[in-house]
């Protein structure tokens, strides 16, 4: 056998060529197509016309709506998720509750799309279980809001809360019981411990999780698309409109400009997330 160096020769990287080629073609190329396409017209000439689409009343509104929806569902998901995580973490660390909650949250955090939309239509839609059940005892529940922003906030909470539990549990685990005991020994009340020890310690982790939830909601498409079949009240649905009717609009690359706008919003959220994450890693490990 010929002697080989521990790390390969100059050509060793060729072994990863299939992978790099695949990723280049199906991950990097689409990203470049979006980024470049946002600034070119159908004949590949540079133009700012697509970017100007972002200033359209409807498109601008859809971005505002998307950001409001993501922020609302992130705050609700983060607060309620933190409460649930607290309920779980104050139990036995090796108990059934802890194990079941982590397993269920792991599944539900990934749950979304058509089935989730169906589940909520089946609960509080026109013919939904809760709607019909309430019909028998009282006045009719209005159901139209399910297909608008408030409905989306509720439906998104269904995967945001479990995601928060998954992200926040490790942070809560990092809070040592000794710190609480120290606070009590010094005569501090539970409220003082909560206000002056737990909250300052957990704030970076909480903010990080909040940003992660924001990005998660902002990127979600399938649930909203299944719930709202007509119209485009949020940015991802604007992309659907652009993709399905771009010939009619005469703005072939408008969808790419909207997609680029989405990338920018997510990038800002993820950058902030990385910064916050670095800070929270200092204490809780």
């Amino acid at each position, binding site marked *: 056998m010929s002697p080989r160096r521990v790390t390969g020769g100059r050509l060793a*990287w060729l072994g990863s060529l299939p*992978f790099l080629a695949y990723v280049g073609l199906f991950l990097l190329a689409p990203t470049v197509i979006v980024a470049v396409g946002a600034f070119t017209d159908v004949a590949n000439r540079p133009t700012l016309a697509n970017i100007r689409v972002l200033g359209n009343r409807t498109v601008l509104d859809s971005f505002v709506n998307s950001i409001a929806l993501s922020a609302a569902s992130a705050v609700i998901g983060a607060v309620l998720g933190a409460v649930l995580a*607290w309920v779980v973490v104050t139990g036995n660390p090796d108990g059934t509750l802890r194990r079941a909650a982590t397993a269920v949250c792991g599944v539900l955090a*990934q749950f979304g799309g058509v089935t989730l939309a169906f*589940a909520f239509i089946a609960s509080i839609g026109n013919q939904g279980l809760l709607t019909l059940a309430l019909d028998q005892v009282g006045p009719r529940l209005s159901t139209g809001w399910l297909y608008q922003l408030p409905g989306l906030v509720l439906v998104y909470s*269904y995967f945001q809360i479990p995601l928060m539990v998954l992200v926040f549990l490790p942070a809560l685990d990092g809070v040592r019981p000794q710190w609480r005991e120290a606070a009590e020994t010094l*005569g501090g009340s539970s409220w003082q411990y909560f206000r002056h020890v737990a909250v300052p310690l957990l704030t970076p982790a909480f903010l990080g999780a909040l940003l992660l939830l924001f990005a998660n909601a902002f990127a979600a498409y399938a649930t909203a698309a299944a719930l709202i079949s007509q119209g485009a009240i949020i940015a991802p649905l604007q992309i659907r409109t652009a993709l399905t009717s771009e010939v009619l609009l005469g703005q072939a690359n408008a969808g790419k400009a909207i997609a680029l706008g989405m990338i920018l919003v997510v990038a800002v959220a993820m950058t902030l997330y990385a910064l916050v994450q670095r800070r929270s890693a200092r204490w809780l490990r």
Partner: protein
Amino acid sequence: MSAEVVPGVAPLVTGAATAAAGPGLRRRAVRRRQGLRVVLLVLFAAFFAVPLLALVEFSTRGSGGIGGSRSLSGWAQILDYPDLVGAILSSLELAVLTSVLSLALLVPTMVWIRLRVPQLSRVVEFLCLLPLTIPAIVLVVGWAPIYLWINYFTPRAYQSSPLALTFAYIVLVLPYSYRTIDAGLAAIDVRTLSEAARSLGASWPTVLVRVIAPNIGPALLNAAVLSVALVLGEFTVASLLNYVNVQVAMNNLSQQNSSVAYAVATASLAAVFLLLFLLSLASRRRTRGSSS
């Protein structure tokens, strides 16, 4: 809401009070905290359970409304829609293709990187985790022209086959597969194993298939199951690139015959939940086995 989080109705129990009144007050506070936990747990459980129960209820609703008789006709009629059955089969094929091909792409690369070009490992990690940051809805916009080319080069008879989605799905599962395989490889001594096999005359393919793969079996299974779960639930890419998988077919059908659509939704959800739940059970047994 957040005010209730305060560990055990705190403001009343000051440190001085605890010291003066002894353990009794403290015990009461603990008991009240237990009560609060139970109430919250029930509320959360209801929030998560009701939509799922409603889904099952809707798919089995008979003629008499919610109080009326149960009917399985929605479930039975699934077979009456050949397009729907075709879409279900396509999704299953896609799931198998995606999980197998993504492993075939990732495992050799990651082993090779570890052994020969560790300086590339950060690049590969970055690339694999990138799909977490770029939303699928954005990638679809970039995939649309690429899929025009793919369609151009496929024989006419196969042009509408959703199996072409495999290319996109491999990208979507990259982050999950990468993480599980990376954890698997980190747990074994890849270098020693492969050098031992090589010195005994094994070829690289033999090393991969007969030495590395069996040693990271659980990680491979894990990655495959995650891929299957993701592909079975995928809607965004398929619907916007005009391919019909189970989610798209379900969504289209919900306008005409909702009970059949909801039956399929329930079935697909149950399948995914079961897969993921078995996975978490299996992985827990493994971690417990290895730690003891």
